[in-house]
């Protein structure tokens, strides 16, 4: 898909975005028509005024014309109102007794995504990526731990705010497989520009497979270097904020790292997830994403390499 279109309201990948796009094209055509007509009227009026000779215009006739135009305006507005309300209903109509429940929690400046499950052990927690099965209705619970953010995946639906102290809900359905991009749409502080969310829409089987993989504990380190990395993560400064299911640390201030390596991006969409980028990020996060909550770890040389090696095998 053309990069421009992975975050576009005009390239719907789900029913709601499609309804809204339809409303957009309707309104655009109506408004364009109105624009042309009014400007034409103005042009004609000026021309007529400048070149007209003979008796002055008939005020009564003009009064009739103005009332007529006003009437037309009202009619058009009522039509558009109905179109808008109808679209609203169509969007709200999407629902399901057995939706897939996803809980999205926004924090400055990243997204935590949790997939609900009957037994707690099966809950899946990831960050800055959201996987959606094609054609399945999803109910997304929206929460915020600090300030107001806004959850927006243009290709799927409009935006809904995540407001501290108030839970919001948004219903989604993705119909076209592909990778899309969501982004925080409410100004939320210094790194508002770098708070993106990768949306992966895939067929049900792939999605289920992904869930199963995500439920597993973290991959055990293989090489001695990865071993060392594991120890550094488990006993170094990482452990104060991050968690790695299994034998790793379990703090929840920052993103869960259990399956870090399988994620497309680092730092909420700012960097592609490659070993080089990861090394750069760990070495000096504040150079890459100034103001982010990730502090300078002080990791250098071999330590840095070891941590990168460990994290990059957490498939």
């Amino acid at each position: 898909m053309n990069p421009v279109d992975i975050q576009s309201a005009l390239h719907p990948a789900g029913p709601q975005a499609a309804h809204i796009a339809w409303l957009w094209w309707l309104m655009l055509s109506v408004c364009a028509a109105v624009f042309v007509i009014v400007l034409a009227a103005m042009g004609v009026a000026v021309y007529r005024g400048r070149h007209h000779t003979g008796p002055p215009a008939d005020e009564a006739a003009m009064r009739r014309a103005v009332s007529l135009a006003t009437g037309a305006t009202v009619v058009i507005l009522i039509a558009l109102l109905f179109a808008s309300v109808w679209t609203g209903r169509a969007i709200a109509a999407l629902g399901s007794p057995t939706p897939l429940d996803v809980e999205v929690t926004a924090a400055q400046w990243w997204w935590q995504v949790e997939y609900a499950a009957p037994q707690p052990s099966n809950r899946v927690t990831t960050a800055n990526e959201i996987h959606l099965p094609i054609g399945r209705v999803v109910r997304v619970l929206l929460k915020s731990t600090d300030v107001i953010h806004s959850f927006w995946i243009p290709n799927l639906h409009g935006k809904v705010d995540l407001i501290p102290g108030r839970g919001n809900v948004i219903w989604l359905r993705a119909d076209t497989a592909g990778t899309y991009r969501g982004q925080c749409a409410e100004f939320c502080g210094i790194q508002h520009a770098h708070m993106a969310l990768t949306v992966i829409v895939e067929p049900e089987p792939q999605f289920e497979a992904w869930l199963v993989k995500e439920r597993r504990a973290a991959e055990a380190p293989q090489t001695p270097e990865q071993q060392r990395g594991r120890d550094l993560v488990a006993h170094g400064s990482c452990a104060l904020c991050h968690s790695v299911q299994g034998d790793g640390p379990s703090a929840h201030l920052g993103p869960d790292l259990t399956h870090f390596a399988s994620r497309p991006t680092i730092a909420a969409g700012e960097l592609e997830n490659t070993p080089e980028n990861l090394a750069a990020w760990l070495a000096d996060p504040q150079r890459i994403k100034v103001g982010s909550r990730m502090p300078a770890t002080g990791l250098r040389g071999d330590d840095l390499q070891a941590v990168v090696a460990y994290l990059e095998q957490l498939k």
Partner: protein
Amino acid sequence: MRRLWLVSVAAALIAVSCEREARRYRDQPQAAVPPDGVRLTTLRPGGGNDIAVSREAPFSDNAQAMAEGKRLYSAFNCNGCHAMGGGSIGPPLMDDQWIYGDAPDQIYSTIVQGRPDGMPSFGGKIPDQQVWELVAYVRSMSGLAPFDVKPGRNDDIGARPSEARTPATGPRQTGHR
């Protein structure tokens, strides 16, 4: 003469408020203590400031860092022992009693090296910048920070008036009680 006076006032104003408002995300004081040095210190009787001696605190007048320190104070569960500063298992931090000194570097060492009877050593755990942010915040709890820099109330169940509204305490004795 009068112009000179004006200029100096302006300069002072600029200095003060610029420092208060600066967003120092990239200050990275070099790690104060080697990791192994840390583990030793917990075994030693308290008081030793010999490792991180006489370094000025990077954030003592910086509102942003102090607020960040406040966030970390509860994020790292300092209030588990020190409560909201009132103290429970650990000593209170709001009062003007400082067992191991109230100088920034002394508090820094206390956090990094740990102290006998329960204060763990966070050296190598908490990155240096965050330690200094904690230092700045801890000092603000007992009024050891400029009134216009101290953090305001949290967006949570505020257990007590915010640091900004606790008056500066009088001359405080440092060292052993």
